[in-house]
Each structure stands twice: as structure tokens, then as C-alpha cells.
């Protein structure tokens, strides 16, 4: 079964064996509006939990995508370069941003599960 977890910065993470796929949530894409560009991290780059890993731009806003887990970037979604709208159309599927290999898979468990994240965004003003 696929497992998904969520960060308070509105990233989702999906475990895919040893690899973890990261993107921004549907809530986040709705807040941001039409995505016009995604700045992807370089493959092989090390990222630290809670630090910037990518940037998602709309016409009048730019948002960092923070790494929800520390680890190494092993793949990025090159399709977003040609079609950044995928982030809006299918944020939690084809609109994924990068894949990483975590240093400590336990960090994944510490993130919110779907129910907790749902409560989290409902509580937001």
C-alpha cells in the first residue's frame, strides 16, 4: 500500500520503496494560483529537512518547496519545465517535483498523515 505523509509547509511525500516522491499539496497549488515555472534542484544535491529544495512560481508569487526529509535528490520531474501547469492539474500525481533518498526514513513517520493534514488546513484561518 502506498503511504503518504504531509508537512506543515504543504509538501506531500509518498514512499515508493526506498525512494520518496515529493510535491506540493492540492491546497498549496490552489493558494499559489497558476504555476508558471518550477525551479528544480540539481540531481545529486543534498537537501536538509525544512530547507529549500525547489521553487514554484506563479505570475505574482514565488514559493519555496522545502525538503520534508533530509537526503539526496535522485530524480527531478523534468516534464514540469515544458508544462508547469501539471502542478495545478495534478499536484499529487503527475505534478510531483522531485524524488529523494532519505538519510533517515524515520523522519517520514514523524510527518502528518492524511487525516492530520486535513485537520491542519481546516484549522488555518
Amino acid at each position, binding site marked *: 500500500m502506498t503511504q503518504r505523509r504531509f508537512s506543515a509547509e504543504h509538501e506531500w511525500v509518498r514512499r515508493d520503496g526506498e525512494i520518496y516522491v515529493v510535491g506540493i499539496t492540492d491546497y498549496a497549488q490552489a493558494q*499559489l494560483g497558476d504555476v508558471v515555472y518550477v525551479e528544480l534542484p540539481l540531481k545529486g544535491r543534498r537537501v536538509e529537512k525544512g530547507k529549500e529544495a525547489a521553487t514554484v512560481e*506563479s505570475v*505574482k*508569487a514565488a*514559493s*519555496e518547496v522545502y525538503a520534508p526529509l533530509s537526503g539526496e535528490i535522485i530524480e527531478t520531474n523534468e516534464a514540469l519545465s515544458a508544462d508547469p*501547469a501539471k502542478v495545478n492539474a495534478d499536484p499529487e500525481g503527475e505534478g510531483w517535483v522531485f524524488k529523494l533518498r532519505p538519510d533517515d526514513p524515520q523522519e517520514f513517520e514523524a510527518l502528518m498523515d492524511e487525516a492530520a493534514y486535513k485537520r491542519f488546513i481546516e484549522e488555518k484561518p
Partner: protein
Amino acid sequence: MSDWSRAVSASAKESAPPGTTSATRKAPEATTSGHRGLVLEEELLFEQGSPDLSGVDLPPVEAFADRLGSLERKAPIGLPGLSEPQVVRHFTRLSQKNYAIDCGLYPLGSCTMKYNPRANERVARLDGFAEIHPLQPAATIKGALQVIEDLAHWLEVLTGMPAIALSPGAGAHGELCGMMTIKAALESRGEERRRVLVAASAHGTNPASAATCGYEIEAVPSNEKGRLDLEELERRLGADVAALMLTNPNTCGLFEDEICEIAEALHRAGAFFYCDGANFNALLGRVRPGDLGIDCMHLNLHKTFSTPHGGGGPGSGPVALSAALAPFAPLPWLVHGEKGLCLREGRSPPAAQSIGRIKGFHGQFGTFVRALAYLMSLGADGLKGAAEDAVLNANYLRTRLEGTLSLSFPGMSMHEVLFDDRFLEGTGVSTLAFAKAMIDEGFHPMTVYFPLVVKGAMLIEPTETESKASLDAFVASLEALAQKARAGEAAFFHEAPRLAPRRRFDEVAAARHPVLRWRPKAAAENGG
């Protein structure tokens, strides 16, 4: 995803009207030519003329042995060819699609869109100013140096500060220059402070300039009165804080009433006080930053001192410096030497501690001449009067509009007044759509979605060069629009503007697939 983006994201969603990408709207009054009366369509230069035309006649060049090495450009450049009347018509037609101060009220908050006197333009074009080279021998530029000296004197007296660095090219460049002098002053004290505090209401250039200068940025929130929260400031002060950047009057149009206490707190902590002088227009002749404990403040000659904005420049951003920062002012320095005024262009005394050069040559001299003409025209009396009228106009708009728009903070305004979009709640009309509807009414919109300290900000700065009649007409239009919004006519706003040279643009497509230049048809079709 970070939170700071969300303050402005509402405007992004609004930027493209619904349905633009799928189906385009019909022109209300289609004409055969595409022109609509005086609004004349105009193709790009590259789509006109013929390669053998030119609008400049030059004498023929006889054959000669060139000295280009083997570096002659062989391939065509790709420029068009037009005669002079075609070029004049092209740019005249283009100009007619621009709103400008000369057309009407331009109430952009924190931009000080005041009248740009034509006398300034004439004197800047005198041969003795426009046709002198920055590297001419000293004996041939005495008048130019006197202009710089005179301008610096006016600005020193107006700011109450002992030194003016004139070379910055615009406000943001002035900010960078100011932060560099602060960093240099700290280094000379043997201190390495890493953080710069920036008021939450600050212009985006403030954090960007400090970050360019290598500082970590921390925002200081406003209090419920729309001023910098002194307690929040003090909580953040420490041995690693280099400076605070604050605008006064701030971008809520309010005077920072605790400014002296803020200065004291900063100085107690060993930090410098940077003031963004974009809003100095309110204070001319009444308040001197130097009396408030400010160490560094840039001025915008293209705002307060009436030099033209020119569709986005050139600006000029002189920086007033306290005695503590003056030794670090950028090169060149204007000094009184044996032969009168002269330029000191190297790091020799008294400029030994200078941060160095930040721009080519000696700054935006052409704007200096214009600003000096303005200062001489107004004089001590006129400048004070200008500030008073600017403040009067802003307060008049506050009074007339506070029942219509939502006033963000009560109390007296300075040169501008901040409203927000609470009055639009439940109407289905966004701040942006409301602003776009103002275009059809013949007004340039106010600044929207800035400052970030309130949601749906609408910042209005009328300046002193608006008549009462013009303000009254503006108020009447805003009242009518607000009523329309409340009456449930949201669709009207979504459509706006309908009467401008262009309707709303698809900014999303423009940013997803940027086309930043014209290309010949064949190249463009090959994916160029």
C-alpha cells in the same frame, strides 16, 4: 511551501480573467482597420518599412583601409529600415497608449507621481550640461561641479545630515550603497554583524538590497496602529544586528511616532538606523531625518524632487549619511581643493575609508540638474508648501473616502493613505478587479496588494500637484464603483477594463512561455 508568498497570491489568481485562454472575447466595436478612433493600432518596428530606408542621412565614406583586424561583422544584423516620419508616427502612436501624470491623477502609493516641470527639462538640455564629458579636465567642468555642490547643499539642509552620496543610480541602488557604508563602518569597528531587521511594511527593495549586501533578513511586524512595533524590535536587537530598515512616513501613510525611541534602541544596541526616504515628500521643510537619529537615508530624486519617471527610469538615489557613516561614502568625492571644487576619485584622504565606486562616472548628473532646478524654483517656502499640500490632499482623500473604502488605520495621514478591500467582502469583486475598473473611469489605479501588512491593500498618494477638482472627480468615481460592487455587479468588474487600449492580458501564458523579443517569421515558426 513558504507562507510569505501567500500575501500576494490573490493577485496572481486574478491576473487572467476567466476564460481568456480558451475563448477570446469579442471586440465591442470592430472596425475594418483595427483602429478605434484615436487609439491607433501599431505594428512592431520590425514589421514595418524596408531595409533600404533610413531616417538618418550620412555623408558617403570613401574607400579606406580598415583597421578592424578580421573582426568585421558580415551577417545582416536584422534591423528594420524606416524614414523619419514613419518613426515619429510609430512612437507618437505608441505614446497615445500610455497613461501619464500629464494625462491625469496617478495615485500610486509610495511612488510620488507629482508634476514634472518642463523648466527642468530645458535646463538639463543646455549644452553646458548635456554636452560635457565626465572625464574632461577640471578647468572645463567648474559649472558642473558647482551644480553637484549646490544640490548636495540643498539636500544636506533638508535632511539635516552632514554628507550626501550622489552617485547611486536609483532608490534601490541608494539602499545598497547605504547598506555597504553600514557594513564598512561595522568592519572598521571590528564588528561582523550578520542580521538586518526590516519593517514588515517595507518596500521589497529593502530586504533585497540588504540581502545583496550579504545580510540575513528578519522582518519586524507592525503594531495595531500601523507603526513598527517597538517591543518586537527590541526583542530582536542584539550584538549581531547591523541595522534596521524602516520607511518614514511608512507605507501605511503614517508617521512613525516612536521614531526617536527606535533610533535610541538601535544605537544602544550598536546598530545603525537606515531610513527609506521614498516618502520624504511629506516631510520637506518640516522634519529633518538627521534630527531623529537616522544614520542613512536615500532620497528618490524621481519622486520627491520631480525628475520624470520616464516609464521606469532613469532614477537617482542620493544617500544622506550621518557623521558616523560619512567617511565610508562611495567614490568619487567632491572636495574643496586649492583650485576650488575638485573630484577625488581614488581612496586617498579624506576618502581613504570609502567603500569605493558603485557606478560609472559621477552619478545621474542629468537628474541632478533637474532636481536642482526644482529646488531653486520652490525654495524653502515652496518646498514646505509642497509637503503641506501633499499631506492636505491625502487627508482630504482619507476624509472623503473613509465611508466608501475601508480605512486600514485611523488617525492623520501623511502624504498617502492606506485603505484595504474589506468593503468588497461578499461582493465577489477582488481588489485587482476594482483597480482595473478605475482604468475605465480614466484614472490610473492606486498601488494594490502593497504594503503586505494588510490584506488587499489599496495605497493612494495624490501628491501636491492635484487640484481639489481632480480629487473630487476621483472620489466620485470611486464612490460610484464601490456602489456598483455592492449592488452585485461583479461581472462588470471581471470584464474591466473595457475601454482602455487593451483588455486584461493573459499573464500566465506570458510567463509560462516567455517571448521576450521579436523574431523573423521563419525563425519564430521553427520554435524560435
